[in-house]
C-alpha cells in the first residue's frame, strides 16, 4: 500500500472541507477522483501530497507516517501536479522538467541519471521536441504536457494529478489518459482528479466518488458510476453503452 489515508479531516480557513475521509492506493492502480465542483477533490489530493496539515486522522506514505518524512523523503515517494501551474521565471522546457528531479542528488546540478529521467519523461509526454523552447512561449496544451513530464521525471511510485487532462484537445486528453494508465500498468499508483466521467470510466482501474468532503462510493468504474450515485451526487443521468462508454444527460429539475 503506497498511500493510506485513515479518517482524515481537513479544514481550510475555518471551514471543514474533508470530513472523516478514508482511502488508500496500491501500486498498479489508476484511481480517478470524481465529484462535483467543491466536493473536496483538490483538497484530498493536496492532503495526500502532504501539503496540508490534517486536523484528525493519519496519513501513511509507503508505510511511514507522513509527518515523520522530510520534504525530500516525501518528494521521492510522490509527485504532485497541481491544477494551477504558475511559472514565475522564464526557463527552457528542459530545465522546468528537470525540477522534477529536485529531491534526487544535488538540486542545482544534473547528473546522468537525472538527464535520462528527464529525457524519458519528455518523450513519454510527447514533448521531446519542445526541450529547448522557453517554457513561457508554449501553448496551454504544450505547457500542460510539459508539467506532466515534470511530475513524471521524479520517477516516484505515487503520482497525484489534479485535472491532468484539462485544457487539452480531445486527442491529447486521450493520450494523457493512456499515458497515466500505462504508468499504472508499469507499477505506479496514479490518483487523478477528473471532471470527464467518460474518460474516467474508460481508463481508470478504480473510481473514488467524492461528495461533500466524504467518499460517496469507491470501487470499479461500473460499480461507482451507477444511476443512483450519479443522480444523487452529480444530478445527472448516465448509462454505460455496449462498448463500455458512458452516455451522460443532465437531470431535469
Amino acid at each position, binding site marked *: 500500500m503506497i498511500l493510506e489515508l485513515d479518517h482524515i479531516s481537513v479544514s481550510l480557513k475555518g471551514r471543514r472541507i474533508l470530513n472523516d475521509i478514508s482511502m488508500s492506493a496500491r501500486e498498479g492502480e489508476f484511481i480517478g477522483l470524481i465529484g462535483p465542483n467543491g466536493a473536496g477533490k483538490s483538497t484530498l489530493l493536496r492532503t495526500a501530497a502532504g501539503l496540508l496539515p490534517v486536523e484528525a486522522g493519519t496519513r501513511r506514505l509507503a508505510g511511514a507516517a507522513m509527518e515523520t518524512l522530510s520534504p525530500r523523503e516525501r518528494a521521492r515517494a510522490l509527485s504532485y501536479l497541481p491544477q494551477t501551474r504558475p511559472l*514565475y521565471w*522564464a*526557463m527552457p522546457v528542459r530545465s522546468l522538467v528537470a525540477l522534477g528531479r*529536485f529531491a534526487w542528488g544535488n538540486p*542545482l546540478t544534473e547528473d546522468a541519471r537525472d538527464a535520462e529521467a528527464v529525457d524519458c519523461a519528455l518523450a513519454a509526454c510527447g514533448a521531446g521536441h519542445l526541450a529547448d523552447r522557453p517554457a513561457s512561449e508554449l501553448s496551454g496544451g504544450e505547457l500542460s504536457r510539459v508539467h506532466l513530464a515534470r511530475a513524471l521525471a521524479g520517477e516516484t511510485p505515487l503520482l497525484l494529478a489534479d485535472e491532468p487532462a484539462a485544457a487539452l484537445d480531445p486527442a491529447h486528453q486521450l493520450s494523457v489518459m493512456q499515458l497515466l494508465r500505462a504508468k499504472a500498468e508499469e507499477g505506479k499508483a496514479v490518483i487523478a482528479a477528473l471532471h470527464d466521467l467518460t474518460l474516467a470510466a474508460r481508463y481508470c482501474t478504480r473510481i473514488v466518488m467524492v461528495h461533500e468532503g466524504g467518499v460517496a462510493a469507491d470501487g470499479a468504474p461500473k460499480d461507482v458510476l451507477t444511476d443512483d450515485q450519479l443522480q444523487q451526487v452529480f444530478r445527472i443521468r448516465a448509462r454505460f453503452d455496449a462498448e463500455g462508454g458512458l452516455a451522460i444527460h443532465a437531470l431535469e429539475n
Partner: protein
Amino acid sequence: MMRALSLNAILAGASVLLVLLSLFIGPAAIAPGDALAALFTDQGAVSAIIREIRLPRALAAFLAGACLGAAGAGLQGLLRNPLADPGVLGVSAAAALGAVIAIYFNLAALAFWAAPMMAILFALGATAALYALGAGRVTTARLILIGVGLSSFCGALISLAMNLSPNPFALSDLINWLFGTVANRSFHDLALAAPFALLGFIMIVASAPGLLALTLGEETADSLGADLKRTRALVIIGAAFLVGASVATAGAIGFVGIVAPHLVRAFAGQNPARLLLPSALMGGVMLAGADIVIRLLPFDQELKLGVAAALIGAPGFVWVAATTKRIAS
C-alpha cells in the same frame, strides 16, 4: 553555465579594476603609478592616503553594493517578484532608523560602532517583525504590503527625529545616513560590517535550491521536496544581515537591489539560483563605479552616493516595473 561563469569572471574583473581606479581619485594629487606603489610598499604619507582613506572608501562602496545586490536577488527569488527589494520591504528604512536613533540619542558619539550596530539590529528587527506578522505562511502580496507600511512608519520616525533635531551637526550626520555616502570610511567600519555581510551572503547562497524550486510556486516547490520554512528563514535573516551591513557601511542606498539583479538577468537568464553571485558582483560594480563618478563631477560639494544611486536607480525601477512581463499564470 558557461555564460554564467564568464559573466562572474567579467564582473569580478571589473570589480578589481574599479577598486584600483578608485585609488587614483581624490583631492590629493597622486599619480596612478605612485598610488599603486604606495598601496604595495610603504611610501609614508602617500601610503597613508591610499591605504587608509582611498582603499577603505573603495572597498566600502563595493561591499555596500554587493550586499544590496545579493539581498535584492535573494528577496526577489523568495517573493518571485522582480520588484522586491530591501527598500520595498522596509528593511532599509528600519536599518536607517536604527542609525538615526543612535545619532539622535548621542549613542554614536559614545562609541563609533553604535550607529552601524543599531542599523544591523534594526534590519534584523524589521525582518523578524515581517516574519512574525506573516506568521510563517505568508502570501507575497501580504508581505509586500506589510513592508510598505513598515517603510512608511520608519520614514515618519526618521522625519520626526530630523524635525526635532536640536543641533545642526547631528542633522548633517543624519543626512549622511539617509542619503548614503562612503566618504571617510575606515577599516574599522569595514571590519564591523564585513562579518555580517559574509554571514548574510552565505545564508542567501544556501537558499539557492529553494529559490529555484519556488519558480513553480509555493505549492509545487513544497511537493518537489524544497524545505520552504528553511528557505524563507535563510533569505529573510540573510537579507537582514546584508542590508544591515550595507546601511552600516554606506547609509541607506536604494534601488541597487532591484537594478543589479535585473541587469544580470539580461545576461545570465532568470534562474534565481544562478543570479545570487553575479547580482552581488553587479551591485558592487555599480556602487564602486558610481562612487568614482561622483568624485569626478565638478561640483563644489560632493554628490552623496545614495543620491547618485537614486538618480540612476529610480528611472531603472520604473523601467523594470514597466517592462516586466508577468509570466506566472
